[in-house]
């Protein structure tokens, strides 16, 4: 099974045209989801699980949601906060997020308890694509990127693709989603700052060995410009495809405001794209740090 994302946003209007008989139906929803779980997984990250609608639970790896975070005491976050999908279960009608408390929005999320309601909007953006021909893929992540790559492990297993994950963190105890990757049959190589294994030179050595062993048909990455550049160099050298999930400050999340633009190199030409709508997953070779 391959992941096929809804590409209709690039095609003709999909609403109900004049004289059309099919009733219009939203494919992006903003709804009140019910918090099932919101607890720490390590010293930095918290795991949030919510019950949601069928539309939201249909989210694909690499897609994201805009969360209307509760207001923590004394603070008034105004905008929604973009949050990568950490997991989606269409059968249970649940979506999961992994977040680190860093600002007013995530401090608000931290106040949620089971049974509370959270306004979620999604699924948003263009996610990862898996080619059914790929036997092995290499996923390289750091920081919040580990969460973004997590749903890829499950999708790759369903695609019959073996995942080798190279995960980078400051300390071993801050690595997240390693168990999840193991559960889906992935091999995990952890590199950390505290063990002095996370430098780009060492990661490049690891990746070169994987390519030489025939264990890398494509690169997937998120969370580190330095590691992205290593993969771009190797992808170019060995003619391998790749995808990168990018981050940017966002306001609307649905391509209206042009706040989240980034530059991309498309065949030597610099073009401007919206991370929320044209991404957040882009071709590895077109991404600029």
């Amino acid at each position, binding site marked *: 099974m391959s992941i096929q994302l809804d590409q209709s946003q690039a095609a*003709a209007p999909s609403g109900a045209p004049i004289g059309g008989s099919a009733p219009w139906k939203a494919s992006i929803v903003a709804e009140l989801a019910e918090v099932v779980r919101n607890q720490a997984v390590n010293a930095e990250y918290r795991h949030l699980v919510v019950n949601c609608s069928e539309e939201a639970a249909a989210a694909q790896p690499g897609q994201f949601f805009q969360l209307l975070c509760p207001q923590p005491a004394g603070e*008034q976050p105004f905008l929604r906060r973009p949050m990568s999908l950490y997991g989606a279960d269409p059968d249970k009608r649940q979506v999961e997020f992994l977040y680190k408390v860093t600002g007013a929005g995530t401090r608000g999320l931290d106040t949620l308890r089971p049974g509370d309601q959270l306004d979620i909007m999604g699924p948003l953006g263009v996610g990862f694509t898996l080619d059914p021909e790929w036997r092995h893929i290499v996923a390289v992540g750091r920081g919040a990127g580990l969460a973004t790559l997590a749903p890829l492990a499950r999708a790759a297993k369903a695609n019959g693709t073996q995942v080798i994950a190279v995960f980078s963190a400051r300390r071993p105890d801050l690595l997240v989603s390693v168990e999840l990757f193991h559960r889906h049959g992935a091999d995990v190589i952890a590199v950390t700052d505290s063990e002095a294994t996370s430098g780009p030179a060492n990661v490049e050595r690891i990746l070169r060995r994987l390519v030489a062993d025939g264990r890398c048909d494509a690169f997937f990455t998120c969370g580190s410009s330095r590691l992205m550049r290593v993969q771009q160099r190797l992808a170019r050298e060995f003619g391998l495809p790749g995808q990168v999930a990018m981050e940017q400050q966002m306001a609307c999340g649905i391509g209206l405001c042009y706040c989240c633009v980034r530059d991309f190199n498309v065949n030597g030409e610099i073009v401007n794209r919206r991370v929320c709508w044209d991404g957040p997953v882009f071709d590895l070779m077109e991404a600029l740090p």
Partner: protein
Amino acid sequence: MSMTPNIDLSVAIGGLTLRNPVMPASGTFAEGLEKVMDFNRLGAFVTKTITRELRAGNPLPRVVERPGGLINAIGIPSKGVPYFIEKIMPHYAAYDTPLVVSISAPTAEGFASLAAELSIPGVAAIEANISCPNIEEDGKAFAMRAESTEKVTRLLRAATELPLWLKLTPNTGDVPEVARAAEAAGADAVVVANTILSMAIDLKSFKPCLGNIMGGLSGPAIKPIVLRQVFQCAKAVKIPVIGCGGISTAEDAIEYMLAGASAVQVGTATFLQPAAMTTIIDGLRSFCLHREIPRVTDLIRGVVIEEADEPDLAWLDPVS
């Protein structure tokens, strides 16, 4: 069994009849919203502002949030007229909703030629954005003065037979005088208003929060200010006033209509609740139903003011 009375939500805006008075504010609407709402329910479409030249937009960061609002300095990125006609317009052709095209140019003559070029089948009205606070140098815009508004409107009027809306700025001392100038020069409606020129500074770095230093404040924080300006403009002109500033709910829209707005534009609210416009339309209908108001147009200029209580705002007029 009682029948549900039929509420007439339609409004007439300078030659156009809209099925209801709710439409997006320019810059907060694009094709992708069709995944969130049924486009056949909107009163009108209003495009992002189009310029003749290709514009990349402002440096990042382009937005910063503040309590009750959002400051933006996007800088009107534009891919130009041919791209709009070939790639954007077809998205809207399938819907029975009028397409209002927002335009901007650095000169009055540039506004006129752009309006002429875009006066084509499929375009229902031109909205001239003479008010964006972050496109002109240091926040200046045509709509800050009656004279420049009169000139650009006159040239626009001569250049197009389409209904012509002028989008005014709240960043001037006498918005009603500017509205009068637009009316005198042939505008079919005025949109009151745009974002309020503002600024935010980061206390960690001591740097401005926006790449453009200044930007436009929108959202609930500006509603009372713009509502007052709509009230003043609606008294000053006979052409319709379209209210735009911090409208998030049906109650906000009703307030604007009572102050004199014939229609409303919804902007920042869509960023927080993507289906805000259809929620507002539903809310207008149920308000009219419960108050037994048969036509939504009955709300326009409906604010009750006893003559003796009317506020004296003469001090706002710098010449008096």
